[in-house]
């Protein structure tokens, strides 16, 4: 895992990406952007890359995920779970599982982005998958917390049961 942090594979922006998406935010403390280059005809991923603001596990998870999806059909890539990402890394500690979830969340958003102006294939569900929902929830939570914080009154906070 440290090796992937040290020498991550597929790091950086793809300038002429066919799709890209971000999950997480600076405020969350974790943020992953995934870039995809897709063969229009076969719907195969030709190139994948990432950028990450997050801990070492986050970077390793993004790196391994982009490795996993290369040369895969979008339909196959869609099915990759955070569990697979974790397994590939030799098992993420529970405290780090959300890194895998976030990476998968970003990938699925990118795939959805790819189909934004194209016809939605059957295998692509309309509802959000758990990974996408978790990414969304983290972002929203931080939004709320951020607002709450800005609104912090200068009154002493009394906590009672």
């Amino acid at each position: 895992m440290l090796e992937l942090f040290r020498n991550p594979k597929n790091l950086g922006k793809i300038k002429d990406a066919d799709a890209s998406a971000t999950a997480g935010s600076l405020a969350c403390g974790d943020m992953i952007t995934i870039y995809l280059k897709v063969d229009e005809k076969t719907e195969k991923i030709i190139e994948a890359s990432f950028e990450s603001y997050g801990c070492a596990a986050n970077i390793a998870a993004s790196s391994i995920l982009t490795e996993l999806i290369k040369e895969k059909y979008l339909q196959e890539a869609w099915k990759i779970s955070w569990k697979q990402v974790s397994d590939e890394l030799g098992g993420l500690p529970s405290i780090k599982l959300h890194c895998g979830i976030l990476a998968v969340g970003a990938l699925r958003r990118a795939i959805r982005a790819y189909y934004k102006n194209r016809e939605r294939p059957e295998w692509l569900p309309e509802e959000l998958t758990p990974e996408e929902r978790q990414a969304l929830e983290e972002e929203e939570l931080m939004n709320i917390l951020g607002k709450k914080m800005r609104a912090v009154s200068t009154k002493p906070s009394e906590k009672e049961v």
Partner: protein
Amino acid sequence: MIGNLSSNLRALIEAHGRPEREVYLDLENSGLIFEEALNELLKSYRESGYGHPSITHKPGWSSLELLLEAKENLLSFIKARDGEVVFTHSGTEANNLAIMGLAKATPNRRKIIISSIEHLSVKFPAERLQELGFRVMEIPVDDEGFVNLDYLSDQIDEEALMVSVAAINHEIGTVQDLRAIADVVRDKDPETIIHTDACDALGRTPLDFGKLEIDIASFSGHKIHAPKGVGALYVRDGIKLEPIIHGQLSSQSLWPGVENIPSIAGFSKAIEIFRENFDNYREKMKNLRDILIGGILSQIDDAFLNGPRGDRRAVDNVNVSFLGCEGEALTVELSLRGVYVSSGSACTSRTLEPSHVLLAIKRPYEIAHGSILMKTSPLHGEKDIEYALGQLVKAVERVRSIAPKGVV
């Protein structure tokens, strides 16, 4: 936590190779040790302090002697005129004893007042007492971490059991004005007990409990380069606490179980070293601190200092945030370069929330996540700090290079 798995740890450690230099700056979480203190511990195990200080035989009396000497040493270092010292096994335990032990002894007063930036070993026991019907009031602090004295004053009444404010904040180095805090409290209600968590203050700022109106204070051995396994609670004469751990009567009724005499002897030695070199060490730590802070702010873009500056800041504390540079990734990158620091980022705390201290001084989340905490010590030299600074510059650059662009 990368690879919290036994099988990966070896690989992780070996991947480090041999860096040019190793500089340990994570003195917040675990200390370096004075070689003299370690020798005192060794002597105690081998010669004179392996007995139980309550038992009537030579090893017992030798152990008791070391114990009493250590108490005297601490009392004289903090210039206490009266009072007792209870040794626990950590600063965390000392804080728990102070807060829960006082609440048990004086259950008729039910309000506990702490600052909003207290260490979790003060904050969590207080919150635990809430479940038992106590009320906890958190006093807000300003952007540098100084307690709002007006609000404090408003909260003191005959319901107030205790006020607890750390002499020096562990994360952002705020040196509180204990004198003013005590005046405010005594003025409103002379019976309210004043506790200070002095774990980070010992050796860093002059403490004069002969003059300060402080009733209880906590200390931690590893914070002054003593062995681990020792904390202490100073309790002024007349203040009653109840034990929170129960067992065999040792020589200390407030913390049962055999005293860790070798660690206590090492603690005593470390106190002596700090006392003898007090001005010298303070000057040295401050100098190193300023080299580090100055270098960071001038050489790295979008870097922010958290906490106060100058003499109102602890002599050893360096806490900076790097925008667009996630803290935990930075600790790993620095580790590969032989520089050991910690981050207040979310990942270590199992929640998405960064340090409650940085939020209390109203740092935005995106700044709080990129915070790095370092402490200088008399065991560091200028070369160490310069090396750390150089690596820090490179490490921040590298971690930022991984992040989505346009973030900074």
